[in-house]
């Protein structure tokens, strides 16, 4: 074999990196990760499709179709006027469909035509340009009266031939509107954070159980400190999650903007969109590490997938409660409820993201991130200690599989 030894003592960070590198590449290049990525993409695709169809339906619903049954010249003038005015007025200008060109002496019954349902019309315009008649359902036709009059006037050549440019002078929304809007942004942000964390944190758990199944955990535990193993696993999964989020985010954004939507449709957070998004990433990482460290500690005690499912359920429920608590606190800014939600480590990422949506100060985020990191470190150490204490048993005492999970926790 080789030569002089080239290995040296690994620092805790370097040891964690060895684990993280292995886990990251192994997961990223596995077939299951492709399916993992595709699952939410299908969901995003379907939601966007549904949103697009809905938007189309809404647009169609807001642009009624009116039938025209007039003398050929009048009908043509009306259609021409509609084209010109639609450019100025947009979707609120009804679409015109010539349903009959009335010859001199011909009798046309618009009521019968409406009742026949031969065309899906909102109303029918008859008469002449000087005296148009609008026939349609009571309560609806009054809405179109003015626009039909405008069309007729324009068709007669009485409308303006030149549209003067109009300067826009907007006014800011009221404080109440702004607060309400930012609250919505805060709550939507929390919801996205919760969904991502719940979907992704479970991966840590299954990874550790798989590791125990491979029986490699003892090799790892002998070579490097257990907390470095845990840190490596957590950060590998975090990196994998970031890849997932990046893919989903890019795909979702492409669909979203591709369908003509914009971020300006939503109330801007107090801290601004770029910083709010950056905080979203940071608090996702923090929340993920916190939840993941709990999952790791639990996963180290579980021996089967069934046990993992049993154990992950209460943790997920607790996480849901934390989310609901933080969500509730959004509506109570400045109160002890909000402060408590910020201080409790597991609700803190949600509460702080909401804080970012409603307040422009940055320093509380720095404090919160340090606080959350401290808890991650504490939980990782506790998990590693639990693992060393409870899992690496052998001989007659190693009857771990026969003991209940509750007993194992009690004993720990």
């Amino acid at each position, binding site marked *: 074999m080789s030569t002089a*030894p080239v290995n040296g*003592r690994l620092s805790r960070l370097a040891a964690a990196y060895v684990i993280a590198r292995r886990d990251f590449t192994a997961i990223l290049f596995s077939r299951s990760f492709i399916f993992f990525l595709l699952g939410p993409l299908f969901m995003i695709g379907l939601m966007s499709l549904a949103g697009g169809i809905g938007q189309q339906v809404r647009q169609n619903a807001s642009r009624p179709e009116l039938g025209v049954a007039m003398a050929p010249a009048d009908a043509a003038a009306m259609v021409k006027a509609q084209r010109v005015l639609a450019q100025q007025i947009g979707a609120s200008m009804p679409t015109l469909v010539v349903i009959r060109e009335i010859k001199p002496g011909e009798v046309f019954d618009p009521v019968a035509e409406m009742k026949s349902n031969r065309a899906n019309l909102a109303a029918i315009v008859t008469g002449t340009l000087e005296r148009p008649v609008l026939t349609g359902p009571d309560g609806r036709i009054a809405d179109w009266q003015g626009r039909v009059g405008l069309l007729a006037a324009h068709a007669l050549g009485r409308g303006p031939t030149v549209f003067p440019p109009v300067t826009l002078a907007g006014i800011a929304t009221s404080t109440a509107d702004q607060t309400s809007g930012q609250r919505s942004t805060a709550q939507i942000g929390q919801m996205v954070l919760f969904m991502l964390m719940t979907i992704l944190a479970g991966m840590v758990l299954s990874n550790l159980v798989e590791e125990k199944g491979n029986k490699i955990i003892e090799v790892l535990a002998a*070579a*490097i400190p257990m907390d470095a193993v845990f840190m490596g696993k957590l950060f590998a999964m975090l990196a994998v999650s970031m890849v997932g989020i990046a893919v989903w985010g890019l795909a979702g954004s492409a669909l979203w903007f591709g369908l003509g939507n914009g971020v300006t449709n939503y109330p801007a957070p107090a801290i601004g969109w770029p910083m709010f998004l950056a905080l979203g990433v940071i608090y996702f990482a923090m929340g993920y590490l916190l939840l993941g460290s709990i999952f790791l500690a639990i996963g180290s005690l579980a021996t089967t997938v069934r046990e993992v499912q049993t154990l992950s359920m209460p943790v997920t429920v607790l996480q849901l409660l934390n989310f609901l608590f933080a969500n509730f606190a959004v509506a109570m800014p400045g109160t002890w409820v909000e402060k408590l939600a910020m201080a409790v480590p597991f609700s803190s990422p949600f509460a702080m993201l909401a804080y970012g949506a409603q307040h422009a100060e940055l320093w509380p985020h720095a404090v919160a991130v340090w606080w959350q990191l401290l808890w991650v470190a504490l939980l990782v150490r506790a998990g590693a200690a639990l693992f060393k204490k409870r899992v690496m048993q*052998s001989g007659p*005492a190693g009857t771990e599989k026969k003991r209940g999970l509750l007993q194992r926790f009690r004993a720990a």
Partner: protein
Amino acid sequence: MTSNAADRPLAIEARGLVKRFDGFTAVDGVDISVPEGSIYGILGPNGAGKTTTLRMLLGIIDPDEGIRRVLGHDRPHEIAHTIGYLPEERGLYPSMKAYEAIGFLGALRGLPLAEGRRRGKQLLEENGLGYAIDRQIRQLSKGMAQQVQLLGTLVHEPKLVVFDEPFSGLDALNQGKLERMIRALAAKGTTVIFSTHVIAHAERLCDEVAIIAGGKVPFAGPVDVARDRIRPQVRLETREQDGVWRNALPTDARHEGRHWYFSLPETGIEPLLRALIEGEAGILSLSIERAGLHDAFVAIAGEAAARALEAEPEEAE
């Protein structure tokens, strides 16, 4: 087998190690001294505390009481790059290729990944496993995967190698190969410590052994000293079945026909020989055999521990 082990500095020193699990004392005051460059065996039946002792020495778990010093350090993880460990329950990532697995095990011990992989390929070639270099672990037989893990344990050229039941699951051919490998490691100055429940392995390989039973170590020291704990055994065959010469035999001597078995008397063999000759016993054969490690184990650890040891499945011995 290496010599003069007692003169060397200690690679491992453990004093009064205690480990309890839920009120059960798995290891109860274990003292072990492993000289550098020696082959040291921890011998005992399953559940005796062998694995727990090794895990404490490696820092996988911490002792509840006692001290451990491994290569001069109290915290074994600090010198993990100089230690190799093959656990009893072998495990590798199934999707890794053989050379990648060796590289990864080296990386865990501080070897750069690229260097570990390079050495992995080289080791596989040298050990007749070149055809498996690019095969995934899941594609290898259990025995081959074990060999890959063994090579991964040694890839970083450790000063101390710890094997937990290394012969378990290996066929006779590979057991022989492993024995040669252990001797070669010791010849290079590497300290090798392994646990086993097969006395023959310990007897063939070890300079020193610790006999462990019920979490305690009733004996730790050179194999020769263990054997000397019981008196050599005398086998005698006589032409005559009876005579006054029989009075010279120890009272606890067993006999089957004209064959006699007894421990060598404290007075030595000469007075007995004289009595046999003068009594015209007609000596057909006489042999004095030094006690084997098995007899020593029975004498030291007791019949119950020996029975437990014998009850365990022997590998392809």
